[in-house]
Structure formats: structure tokens, C-alpha cells
């Protein structure tokens, strides 16, 4: 009887081990499959875009239809400008909302805010573009960098808010209590102790949403529109990489197609670089000090 039971245990142990290693293998394969699109997209964009990259691509304005050459200098600068404007709005607003939800958000109002943030996050970006079009473009009677920045900024708010909220919630309650017990007002504990302690993860969340925003095309089509020239003023239409890529890609010209691929490559590299900088430069510093 005893031996029988030990036998059974041994067999079931072997079975568990077999199931365990099978599942492990399945997970690894699934992970690799998930990485395939990432690498194939990057590889394809690299292969198509790299040949069209040259000095004039970075330094020159687009050439008129029919003329070969030219570059996307204004679109690169335009994307940087738009993302900067968007961050100016989206980052502080998003973090403030996240702080409210995590530190003060109890009861009805907080659930409503949380629900709205989730709703806002799931609204298709083109609708946000339409909204800004109706609100700003129609009022100012022209497309502008400001309108584009506003649309991207609105897009950033819910993601920054929810990611900040999640990070803040990971800070144990007793850290806040220790701050309060020192006789510090709650807002100081929140900003100078709690938020400071997790600035690394918060920055990571912010960078992810900045990266998302810098690739958005739809909300820019009827807010920032496009511009073939350098844009000196924020109340004028402005060029951006995604819109320029879109314009060139649907054109019938081979030269423009090549430039669209080059633009795509730059956009991807820009986003990669932002993620890399966040990880390598910002995160360890936040941990050390």
C-alpha cells in the first residue's frame, strides 16, 4: 500500500515535470513569435529607408512635384515641435490627474474621473483630431502647430494619468504615513517624497506616451495639416513626419515613395532613441540619488 502510494507520487512528479517543461517551451516560442513582427518591421523599414537617407534628406525642404531630391528637414523639426507642444500640455496635466486619482481620489468623483480617462484613452485619435478641428481650427480659421500640439496633448493625458496612477499606487502607504508623521502637509509628502521616489518609472510612462504621440498621423491631418516650407510661427500649419510619410506614400512618384520609407525609418529611430535614452540615462540616475 505504502509503496503503491510512493510509486504514484513519483509518477505524478514525472508527469508534472514533463508538463512544466512543455509549457516553458510553449511560452518561449510564443515570446519569440511576438518578437517577429517587431524585428521584421524594423528590418523592412531599414532595408527600404536606408538607401534614401542622405545629407539633403536631413537638411533640405521637400522639392516641388516632379523635381527629384529634397528632404524632410521641416517635417523632422515639425514633429519635434509638435511633440514638445503636446508634452507641455499632456505631461503636467496627466501627472496631476494621476496624482489626484491615486492620492486624493476616493468616492464618486474619482470613479467618474477614472472612467472618463479610460473613455478618453479609447476614443480613436481621429475623433480627437476632429474635436480640435471644430474647436480650434474653425475658430482660428486656419490649421496650426498649436492645434496639432493640442490634439496630441489631449491624446497623451489619459495614458500619462493612468500610468502615473499605477506607479503611485505601488508606493506603500507607510511611506506616506512616515512623511505625514514628520509634520509635513500632504501635498509636500506627495510631491517631494512620494512622487520624487518614483520619478524614474513615471518618466518611463511619460516617454512611452510621447513615443506614441510622435507617430500619430490621424489627429494631425486636420489640425497641424502640412507645410512645404519652414514654419516660423506656431499659429501656422506645420509639417510632421507622419503626415509627410502619408502624403508621400500615397503619391504616384517613386522618388517620394523612397523618401516616405526614409521618413518612416527616421520616425522609428526617433522613437527607439527616446525609449533608449529613458532607459539608459534617466532610470539609473533616479535610482542612485
Amino acid at each position: 500500500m505504502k509503496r503503491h502510494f510512493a510509486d504514484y507520487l513519483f509518477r505524478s512528479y514525472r508527469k508534472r515535470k514533463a508538463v512544466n517543461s512543455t509549457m516553458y517551451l510553449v511560452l518561449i516560442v510564443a515570446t519569440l513569435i511576438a518578437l517577429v513582427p517587431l524585428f521584421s518591421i524594423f528590418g523592412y523599414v531599414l532595408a527600404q529607408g536606408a538607401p534614401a537617407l542622405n545629407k539633403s534628406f536631413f537638411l533640405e525642404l521637400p522639392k516641388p512635384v516632379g523635381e527629384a531630391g529634397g528632404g524632410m528637414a521641416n517635417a523632422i523639426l515639425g514633429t519635434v515641435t509638435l511633440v514638445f507642444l503636446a508634452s507641455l500640455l499632456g505631461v503636467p496635466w496627466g501627472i496631476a490627474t494621476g496624482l489626484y486619482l491615486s492620492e486624493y481620489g476616493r468616492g464618486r468623483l474619482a470613479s467618474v474621473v477614472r472612467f472618463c480617462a479610460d473613455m478618453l484613452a479609447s476614443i480613436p485619435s481621429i475623433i480627437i483630431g476632429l474635436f480640435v478641428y471644430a474647436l480650434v481650427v474653425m475658430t482660428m480659421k486656419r490649421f496650426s502647430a498649436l492645434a496639432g500640439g493640442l490634439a496630441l496633448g489631449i491624446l497623451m493625458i489619459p495614458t500619462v494619468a493612468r500610468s502615473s496612477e499605477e506607479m503611485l499606487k505601488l508606493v506603500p502607504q507607510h511611506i506616506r504615513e512616515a512623511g505625514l508623521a514628520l509634520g509635513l502637509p500632504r501635498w509636500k509628502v506627495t510631491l517631494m517624497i512620494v512622487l520624487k521616489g518614483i520619478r524614474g518609472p513615471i518618466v518611463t510612462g511619460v516617454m512611452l506616451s510621447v513615443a506614441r504621440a510622435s507617430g500619430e498621423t490621424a489627429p494631425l491631418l486636420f489640425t497641424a495639416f502640412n507645410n512645404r516650407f519652414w514654419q516660423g510661427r506656431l499659429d501656422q500649419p506645420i509639417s510632421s513626419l507622419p503626415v509627410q510619410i502619408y502624403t508621400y506614400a500615397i503619391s504616384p512618384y517613386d522618388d517620394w515613395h523612397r523618401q516616405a520609407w526614409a521618413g518612416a525609418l527616421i520616425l522609428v529611430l526617433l522613437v527607439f532613441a527616446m525609449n533608449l535614452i529613458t532607459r539608459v540615462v534617466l532610470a539609473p540616475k533616479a535610482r542612485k540619488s
Partner: protein
Amino acid sequence: MSAIMEVSGLNAWFGAAQAVKEINLSFEKNTVTAIIGPSGCGKSTFIRCLNRLHEEVPDARAIGRVLLEGDDIYGRGVDPVAIRRKIGMVFQKPNPFPSLSVFDNVAVGLRLGGLRRASILKEAVERSLTLSALWDEVKDKLNAPGTSLSGGQQQRLCIARALAVEPSILLMDEPTSALDPISTAKIEELVTELKKAVTIVMVTHNMQQAARISDKTAFFLLGDMVEYGETSRIFTAPKDSRTERYITGRFG
């Protein structure tokens, strides 16, 4: 001896559940008072009422009178933030602020309280770390993260952090329950030393610890204070049979 803090008619609730019932108790200057009792009897809730931290928990409330040097901290119009500056607290789990250095952990109370002068801050940090018997161990790594210290050192860092703002009372909620025996002994020694400078109220579930370091002991059970008196008397001649049963280890 004069009482620095007098508690009368203190009651505390979590929602509808009462955790602390009608406590009357006073703490004399430069003494150590131990609060003992089985877990869940309201010890933490009680001392968290003494710096009005209890009310920070959602749905929690407290009523009663707690006179600190004659003024009721539950009085009308009293700002809990202001009174907490005079009442330090050390928690069960060492909780130095993450991402702050050893130095900044100690300085943070003064700095965020508005003190900017570097020389004064430096003095205060050294004084507090010396008081908490940590200075010699950390004086060469003041810029290291507070969380890089050992558990026992972290707890002494938290004591230094509390002492830096010069409170008149120090509340300690089972400060050694997460520590090893050697760190525990160090903290016990420190408490005996610290009472020259500050009045200490310490929750502990370790009766030997209470017997070793406290002058007065209060025994709590199910939110009531069953017995209070000189520590030596409580442990040799308890008046209440429930106290006797608890200290002889027959329940809790």
C-alpha cells in the same frame, strides 16, 4: 513628575467597528511607557491616535481629549500637521524614504519644514544620527541611499529622521518586530538612552522587551485598557486576572 501627555476618554473606530475604547492614560516626561497586548487589541490604533495619524485612514475617526503639554490636539481648529511636528513616530517596518540618501532622509523633515541653511542642516543631521547611535556606522556613506543600509540600521535611520525635528514625544509601533536579535538589542539600548531627551511610548508584543526597558506598562485587550502601572509591578503583581494570564503566556 509631570505628565507631558494626558489622554482622556479616547475612542477610535474603523467605520462602524470600534478599535479603541475609552482610554485614560498619561505619560510622564522622560519615561518609557510600553503598550502591550495580543495582536489586534488596538495598540497600533491607540498610538496612531496620539499624533492624529489614525484619521488619515479612510472612514476612520477618533474622539476624545489628548493634551500635549496642556493643549488638546483634538481641540477645535487644531491643525494635525502642526501637532505632528512635536510628536515623532517610528513604524513597525523600517521605512526610510526610497530614493533619498541617508543624509536627506534625516534632513527631509527640517528641509521641507522650511529650513534651508546647509550648515544648520548638517549639524542637525549629525546630532540626530549620533542620538540614534548610527553616526559612526554611516558617517562615510551619508550620500548612499537610505534603503541600502541593513534592516537594523534602517530602523535607527528612521529614529534619527523622527528625532531631527526635535519632537517632545516619540511614538514607536513595534519598532523591533521586523529585526534580528542583535539589532533589537541595539534599539532597546538606544531607547533607554533616548529617554533622557524625549518621552517614549512604545508598542510591543514582546513582554520581555517591555519588562526590560519600560518604566510604565499598559495592558490592552480588545480595545480596552485593562491595567496600567509601574512595569515592575505589572509583571510581578498584576491586579487583573486577564493581565496575569497574558503575561504568564496563557493567551495571546
